[in-house]
């Protein structure tokens, strides 16, 4: 079912490219003005929900609960909501949980996928084709259909409410194997042959020739895996009940009911949880955009 492996054709996506104006076209032609207005309207529409959340988070609870569309409440701006949320302390623990479990998931996923992809791309073994097809075909299996038997398995392994129970089931990402294999296929084989003739072992060739050559794709894939792990909801929500082991997104769901009608605090919590990824995006915008466009698959 390789049609469900949607990799974009190899594109060099700089995405920042600005199509130069056609010669003789004024920067303020009617068409451009209309396009600009349309673009600004859509961008505003898309930014408004976040801006509204920010405005609410900086209100007092009383102002937030009095409704209205005023971005600033009667009592002015206040960081009260943020302070209350931070003082409670769980945000730090959950932030750390999210950070390190996502990092471990990323390292394991990319590591084992790269090794397997190399075997599929370069090494000869019996059953290679069948195994590869099995791995690719597994992409059609929705992870949501596996939650029941997986949870049962975690019960048997005594891994419910443990970090390993959270991490391990998330490390199998068949699309990553597919993407990396395609990349390795394109790496010129002569480079490796030369080293092999010089007596370098397979592992050595992989480590000191193939991996360094693959740095850009490994980077793109890693950012993607990290974001997916950071945002994953269903599995962490099921396997973790202990408040001290929760990730940020799962924690948000549980405090939702706890805070009840504390709107400013709820928004402050949500923004604090969103902040790390907004920062990551601003820092790695180009790589993320490129990664999404070239790897071309989404989780949600």
């Amino acid at each position, binding site marked *: 079912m390789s*049609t469900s492996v949607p990799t974009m054709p190899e594109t060099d996506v700089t995405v920042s490219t600005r199509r130069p104006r*056609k010669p003789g076209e004024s920067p303020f032609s009617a068409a451009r003005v209309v*396009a600009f207005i349309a673009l600004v309207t859509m961008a505003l529409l898309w930014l408004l*929900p976040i801006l509204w959340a920010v405005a609410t988070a900086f209100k007092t609870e009383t102002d937030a609960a009095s409704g209205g569309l005023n971005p600033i409440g009667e009592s002015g701006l206040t960081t009260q909501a943020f302070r209350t949320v931070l003082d409670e302390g769980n945000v730090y623990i959950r932030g750390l949980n999210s950070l390190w479990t996502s990092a471990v998931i990323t390292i394991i996923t990319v590591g084992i996928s790269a090794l*397997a992809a190399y075997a599929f791309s370069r090494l000869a073994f019996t059953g290679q084709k069948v195994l590869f097809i099995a791995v690719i075909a*597994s992409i059609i299996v929705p992870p949501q259909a*596996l939650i029941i*038997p997986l949870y049962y398995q975690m019960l048997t392994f005594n891994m419910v409410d443990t970090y390993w129970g959270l991490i391990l089931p998330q490390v199998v990402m068949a699309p990553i194997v597919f993407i990396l294999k395609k990349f390795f296929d394109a790496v010129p084989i002569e480079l490796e042959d030369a080293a092999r003739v010089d007596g370098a072992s397979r592992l050595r060739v992989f480590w000191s020739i193939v991996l360094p050559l693959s740095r850009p794709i490994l980077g793109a894939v890693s950012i993607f895996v990290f974001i997916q792990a950071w945002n994953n909801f269903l599995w962490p929500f099921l396997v973790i009940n202990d408040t001290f082991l929760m990730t940020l997104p799962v924690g*948000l769901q549980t405090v939702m009911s706890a805070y009840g009608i504390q709107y400013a605090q*709820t928004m402050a919590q949500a923004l604090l949880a969103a902040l790390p990824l907004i920062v990551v995006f601003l820092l790695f915008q180009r790589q993320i955009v490129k990664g999404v466009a070239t790897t071309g698959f989404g989780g949600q």
Partner: protein
Amino acid sequence: MTDVAAERSAIGPRADVVPEAPGTGPTAKVARRRNQLIAWAFLAPFMAAFVLFVIWPLMHGVYLSMTDQSLTGAGGRFIGLQNYTEALSDPVVWSSIRNTVWFTVISTVPLILFALVMALLVNTGLPGQWLWRLAFFMPFLLASTVISQIWMWIFNPELGAANEILQRFGIEPIAWLQTEHIDIISITIATVWWTVGFNFLLYLAALQNIPDLQYEAAAVDGAGRWRQLFSITLPQLGPVTVVVVILQMLASLKLFDQAYQMMDGGSSDTSRPIVQYIFEAGFTGYRFGYASAISYIFFALIVIVGIFQMTVLSRRRENR
């Protein structure tokens, strides 16, 4: 789209020819066995995880679906296809399938149209590129719980921004998430806002792959902007649109997070997606056997849609 390439590269170029040329004789045999071992050493970590966390649950789920296993550990008797017959006559199974399919229909169309318009506008090269990308794509990077909280606040029936805006226009307030049939539309609105950025990026990448030369040639021939859009741009977006539609349908069928969260853990018969019913049957109803059966019905739904897409796709190819 890449079947042939995947097929061909499944065997892949082999580097083994140089140092240990396959041949006959005892040394060649040893070398070949060694190669097998090396290959398996590379494969082992991934394959172990693959078998443990995909293949085994996939097969164990079949068995579980034929038992009356409970989350509490009780039960586990083999009861044959009883869970399946029960599921097929369970109205909630059908309503949740209906909701899922309905959501897929009403979310896919705007998720593609908005993405296309955004990409076309951004691709005109207007200044402020980073800002447009930030505005359209950033929501996609946020966790589902974050977007659910924001939209629950916007959709709050008494205090939410959505109703405040409606009132400005003299329209009666709506109980966005508390009214049957409207709840799924509210969830769709939030979803479109959240995930359109992904499709937008795919379209943008495709647009930037169209060589400028084609536009220049068209301009020389006297084709205006609109003419260029319909004769050059849109026809070349066919392949990427196929990818986007396939991905979008499969993603929408897996709806759970935002539907579950925005309904505040509750559910209505017009908003509950099938994945949520798996969750409810297994984790609030404790019926693991029954939930496994529903999981396989869900899996079947995905496979049916996948096969349907492939048939349409190959028919399209033949027609070319």
